[in-house]
């Protein structure tokens, strides 16, 4: 799991302005915890620890409850993520078309496993269930770009391409 326990999260200085704005937006909405956390993640790319304390205080919930939610759902992240998010579909259609060798090759080439990020913060790799383009199985995505009918050779091409891309 990518979701490390709280102690491992560096308590760096985080600008809470955006988090406060998100909370303001949903303050009166019933069931606002998830929309708030989703908003924070959209703003920061992950959910930094100081924002959790802020949310706990402003929404009047226990931090433990927030951690419960954050660790339950696959889409919340407690650590910074890579500039390029590589997603490989391992849904049924992709599985029977050979998605396993695509994930294994990415693992081997990048030296990271599922839901992990390379040290230089360039790549995060994720296996995902069904991206919904089963006609092009096996499928991979890098950020918003889709790569269909994947082969091991194409994995190398993708890594080569994105190694050249800027990190900004």
């Amino acid at each position, binding site marked *: 799991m990518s979701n490390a326990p709280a102690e491992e999260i560096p308590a760096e200085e985080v600008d809470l302005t955006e988090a406060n704005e998100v909370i303001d937006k949903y303050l009166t909405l019933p069931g606002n915890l998830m929309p708030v956390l989703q908003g924070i993640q959209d703003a920061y790319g992950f959910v930094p620890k100081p924002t959790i304390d802020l949310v706990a205080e402003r929404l009047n919930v226990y931090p433990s409850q927030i951690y419960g939610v954050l660790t339950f759902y696959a889409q919340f992240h407690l650590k910074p993520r890579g500039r390029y998010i590589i997603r490989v579909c391992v849904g049924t259609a992709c599985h029977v*078309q050979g998605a396993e060798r695509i994930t294994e090759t990415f693992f081997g080439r990048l030296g990271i496993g599922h839901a992990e990020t390379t040290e230089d913060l360039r790549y995060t790799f994720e296996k995902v269930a069904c991206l919904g383009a089963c006609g092009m199985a096996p499928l991979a995505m890098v950020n918003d770009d889709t790569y269909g009918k994947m082969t091991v050779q194409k994995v190398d091409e993708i890594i080569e391409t994105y190694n050249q891309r800027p990190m900004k």
Partner: protein
Amino acid sequence: MSEDNAIVKILICQGTGGISAGAKQVEEEFTRQIAEKGIVAQIGKRCDVVKTGCRGLCANDVLVDVITPELGRVTYDFVVPEDVAGILDQHIVANEVIEKKKAKAYYNTFVDQQMRVVMTGCGQIDPEKLSAYLEEDGFKAIEKCVKQMKPADVIDEVKKSGLRGRGGGGFPTGMKWSFCAASPGHHKYLICNADEGDPGAFMDRSILEGDPYCIIEGMMIAAYAIGATGGYVYVRAEYPLAIDRLQKALDVCYAKGYLGKNIQGWGFDFDLRIKKGAGAFVCGEETALMASIEGERGMPRPRPPFPAVKGLWGFPTNINNVETFANVRHIINKGHEWYAALGTDTTKGTKIFAVTGKVKHTGLVEVPAGMSVRDVIYKVCGGIANNRKFKAVQAGGPSGGCIPAEVLDTPVDYDSLIKAGAMMGSGGLVVMDETTCMVDVARFFLTFTKMESCGKCVPCRIGLKAMLDILERITEGRGEMADIDTLLEMGATIKKASLCGLGQTAPNPILSTVKYFRHEYEAHILDKRCPSNSCKELLLWQVVPEKCVKCGACLRACPSNAIKWEKGEIAELIKENCTKCKSCYDACRFMAIE
């Protein structure tokens, strides 16, 4: 609509499948070149580029329909930006169909064999335009309900139509509504379950992307019938395009008075908003879904109390699936007699299937309930790809089961599929050929359900893990004969003792593969061989000379120089270089690698 005859329309499929294949670039190219070439002046007609939702045949995207007064509707497939100039010059200006690019006969077969009710709008109208929906009799059904029918009449109409929940369970929709309607209290909620988690099923997404207004109208009708004033559409976060299009539709509905207070002056209020999921399969279970809307961990709650009595925030709540809501307006518009005449005795109407896997034409098909599985695969979808032999079709996703060749004539309705050991589920059909190992498929689904188990109840949390361990042992060649019985026994226990639908159905893929493909389990255990040559640990990694046709396909597929092949020679596999990625195995069409 009369001026429609005098304009040219270019329909470009822009569902997730279309966009992945490059539909945006094709659209931009059309728009750019139409302006650049002055097409409108050249032909003296309006020329509209319309982006539509998914029309089903995702494998052949980008699909472009060109409708001209002279030539009618012509479909082109595999369109890339480079084709745009030709289509404009030859087809639209010179009125000459480009035969070479035209979708072949199979496209017509694919379309003609279907019966589109729910998906009428998908692929035809611009999902982002309210005007397009209104032209298709949009919001006529809710108007009819509010003006001419009492809520009880609406429920009665839906009951008589025989509509059953399309989420998988198949509970009669009208009956479900009547429970919630009968619950005391003025504050009730209505939820649309669009947390389509089954890997391999994407009809709900396509409807949301292709015709979002029909969901809104379906929900309005249900809200009127049961007396709900607030509603949520719970959409998987993995569907950004669907969320985006639905949000746009909601905004337009509020702006034009189709949602909110006193809708269209009809004296009926309904508020609707989107709740974005965050990646948890179990949230498709209705009580877990409600917990998630409330902002908690999405874990199921014991029933009773049922949601119709005590649901979201303790208020009576009714939950239906996307496809169910999409059916509603057609029932109201055309009457229950029309709807009940479709389908079989126990399953009325049509059902959308997502047919994927090793089939020629992957895509979404809508057929009348009761068509045989064989017809869906062979008639509509063109049969098995690469001339391989059919082995089984997996119906119902991780909760469903396999249908082998012997029972391929099973009609697709709720009860027949259950009898065959599978289930309708959300309607995913994954086709498997002789290269798919059924033990591996069972292991695959169990890996998924084990990962997605919320952990609340023990049978599911620990039982699935234990079953998965056994399956992994078998696929690695370390299984024992007693394992099969252990699997069956555990499966039966987990089904009985689990709290929610996830655990109660998770053993199904195993139980059904053992039932129909016990010999494959036995081969793994006794012979340490995988009959489909699919389980890596049991492969010999060699070329069978008698089967090799010397084509060299394996060499081209191999990423690691592990194949030696010369023209006219039998291929050879060099084990030292082999990374066991199975690229060669999948590339070989003659099963010559084992």
